């Protein structure tokens, strides 16, 4: 699991390093350290197959290379003229067949175990969006918690304007927190295209298919933070929708649930408060950076024709109501998603305010959470 910061290209001696790299942490040759029994099973199965494969490989190629060296014309070897031998053929068909059947048996047990989602303690729904994950705690302790989880690696690091951090591309703003030793059932679905929810250390990978739910499960054996990524090509920011699962003790988990509930209640209350332009602008900038930058870009210029500019756009300069409406409800048949279900009143108020007053836009008006709440009705 250890990551590292070596980004400098090492051209000199690279070929050599490739084969002597086992000592370096980064030259990972095998699966990530397992955090579940299922992941351990996968590693054991893989080890078993590798041993068998290496033996067969050496066997076959020892014969071939012996033949290549011994039976060459330059050594004066005369060609034999046999061209079949039923006994040999039967042997080399039956033996691999038996070996393969032997390998299929433990695999069957592992598959049956992997797919048994019954008796779960907590059910969490993971929803894939282009390009982030949303989590809903459907059942069990923490029921009702829902939040979005976005990559928090800053664009400057990706663009090379800043040094890359330790968990480059694998860090999110909100971890998926689960208790240790509990069976967590994960339902996957998506809103737009197929995504795939994958955390290698937990040995969980399940496609998230729009319109359908699929389920899988894991039971983490030890506390820690486990990182994964979307595994199915889902459009331009496919590389930038990581998954971070934080496994904590039961007590910590209960604390976390409490804190989340409080925060959700606070968010729900936001509709009553009023904020200043400066407060909304600074909060809006953060919301914008997390949710809007991928398409509309940091400078508000968008990527026309697919993603229109906001800087100087009719919507950002026009009526507040239309602006709020498009953020809340999205625009049908475009990439503009409805954020009403993803963001709270305060965040939407802030981001709308930000869009109306950032860059060249100088609407000067302030959108308060109460207006969002009213627009939702």
């Amino acid at each position, binding site marked *: 699991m250890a990551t590292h910061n070596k980004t400098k290209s090492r051209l000199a001696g690279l070929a050599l390093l490739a084969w002597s790299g086992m000592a370096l942490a980064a030259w990972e040759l095998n699966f990530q350290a397992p955090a579940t029994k299922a992941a351990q099973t996968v590693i054991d199965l893989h080890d078993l197959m590798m041993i068998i494969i290496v033996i067969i490989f050496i066997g076959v190629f020892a014969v071939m290379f012996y033949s290549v060296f011994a039976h060459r014309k330059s050594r004066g070897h005369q060609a034999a003229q046999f*061209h*079949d031998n*039923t006994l040999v*053929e*039967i042997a080399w*068909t039956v033996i691999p067949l038996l070996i393969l059947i032997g390998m299929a048996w433990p695999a*069957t047990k592992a598959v*049956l175990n992997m797919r048994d989602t019954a008796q779960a303690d907590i059910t969490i729904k993971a929803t894939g969006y282009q390009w982030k994950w949303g989590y809903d705690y459907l059942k069990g302790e923490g029921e009702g918690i829902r939040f979005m989880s976005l990559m928090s690696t800053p664009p400057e690091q990706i663009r090379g304007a800043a040094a890359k951090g330790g968990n480059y591309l694998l860090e999110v703003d909100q971890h998926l927190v689960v208790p240790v030793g509990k069976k967590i059932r994960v339902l996957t679905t998506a809103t737009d295209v197929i995504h795939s929810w994958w955390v290698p250390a937990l040995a969980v990978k399940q496609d998230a298919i729009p319109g359908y739910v699929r389920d899988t499960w894991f039971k983490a054996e030890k506390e820690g933070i486990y990182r994964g990524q979307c595994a199915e090509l889902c459009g331009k920011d496919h590389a930038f929708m990581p998954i971070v699962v934080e496994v904590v003790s039961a007590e910590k988990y209960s604390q976390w649930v409490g804190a989340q509930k409080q925060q959700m209640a606070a968010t729900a209350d936001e509709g009553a408060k009023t904020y200043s332009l400066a407060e909304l602008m600074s909060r809006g900038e953060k919301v914008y950076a997390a949710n809007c930058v991928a398409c509309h870009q940091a400078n508000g210029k968008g990527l026309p024709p697919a993603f229109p500019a906001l800087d100087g756009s009719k919507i950002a300069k026009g009526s507040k109501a239309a602006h709020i409406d498009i953020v809340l409800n999205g625009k049908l048949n475009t990439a503009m998603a409805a954020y009403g279900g993803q963001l709270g009143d305060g965040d939407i108020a802030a981001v709308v305010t930000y869009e109306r007053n950032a860059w060249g836009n100088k609407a000067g008006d302030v959108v308060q959470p109460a207006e969002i709440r009213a627009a939702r009705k």
Partner: protein
Amino acid sequence: MNMGAMMGERRAGPLQVMRTVLSALFGVRHRRMHEEDAAGLRPGQVIIAGIIVVAVFVLAIVAFVQFVAIK
């Protein structure tokens, strides 16, 4: 090794066709045995038999899976 055998008019029985197809699926076939069989085989027979054998093969795996998955 003589061409006359290939032109034979004798028709192969179902058993013989099955033997041909099964040994093909298994991947082992002696040329001499093939030439004995080939005398009476028609392509149509072999293709139909092949499809039947594959269908049986699939059904056998399915049945085995049912047995394993729903214990």
